[in-house]
């Protein structure tokens, strides 16, 4: 982690950088809500293949992100503090965690009609019962932490 030579604090933990993360989050929350990606109705429409909208949003997001990552690598773009950009690769292992964990998450995604980002946005937009969904998600995360040594990965 990069450090700020003056204070010996990690760069990302200084006040200004932390405000930047908050503001980026605000922008993300606005986009998620205004694009209706947070809507249970849109998620239903997607899983019923009755509109290309969600697929267009996800696909164009992936393309823009992939082109950005490729450009960052090719041009050797550095972070704001001059560190080289490195994205840690995901370890494949047996692959079980991705297939099984992914499927369990997918069940929850369709039932709740929201993935983690939208859960936070929905609370903000007035669907306050999603606080209960987040608390339940924390319980699910805790159970994974408890079972982790016994689960195949």
């Amino acid at each position, binding site marked *: 982690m*990069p450090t700020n030579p003056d204070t010996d604090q990690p760069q*990302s*933990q200084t006040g200004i950088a*932390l405000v930047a*993360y908050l*503001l980026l*989050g605000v922008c*993300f*929350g*606005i986009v*998620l*809500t205004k694009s209706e990606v947070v*809507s249970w*109705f849109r998620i239903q*429409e997607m*899983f019923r293949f*009755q509109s290309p909208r969600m697929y*267009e*949003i*996800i696909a*164009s997001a*992936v393309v823009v*992100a*992939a082109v950005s990552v490729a450009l960052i690598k090719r041009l050797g773009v550095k*972070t*704001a503090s001059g560190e080289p*950009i490195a*994205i*840690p*690769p*995901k370890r*494949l292992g047996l*692959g079980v965690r991705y*297939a*099984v*964990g*992914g499927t*369990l*998450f*997918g*069940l*929850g995604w*369709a*039932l*709740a*009609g929201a*993935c*983690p*980002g939208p859960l936070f946005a929905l609370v*903000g*937009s007035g*669907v306050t*019962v999603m606080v*209960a*969904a987040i608390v*339940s998600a*924390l319980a*699910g995360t*805790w159970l994974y*932490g408890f079972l982790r040594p016994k689960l195949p990965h």
Partner: protein
Amino acid sequence: MPWYVAGPLIGLFVPALLILDNRVFGVSSNLRHLCSAVLPSRLDYFRYDWKRTGLWNLLFAAGILLGGFLACHWGRPQSVAISDETRLALTKLGIHDFSGLAPRQLFTWSALLSLKGLASVIVGGFLVGFGTAYAGGCTSGHAISGLANLQLPSLIAVAGFFAGGLIATHFLLPLIL
């Protein structure tokens, strides 16, 4: 907001966070950070310096909540214009209130007392938490960051997301609703 504005904007969070300070875009880690911060635990999975690794992301999540608040208090109130086929299919399942971002029949505090409200909010939330922790990421971390970085594990995870979503939509929801 049309898809060709929303999608590219969402994609830009990946380079923005990398350039800001090598941060990998992904929201579900916050569930782990919150567990680590709030629940004292001896479990290895939660024993790490959550402030150092996760404070930036928790602020990002707090921002998402605030952004949701701003978005719905700014501009016209939203009614989601889903396709007629979806509306018909959901009406057949007993959904008749199409106002707001999520159906009020399922997503209010009083609906928690019904089986369908409980299944949607509590069971749905629990599976989101367990599933993302096991899979090591959610729609943002795997479907966007992971696929953008050409990670095979993320492709497997995304196939799982859709398999699970299709099962829940076509087999579980008709039983619950």
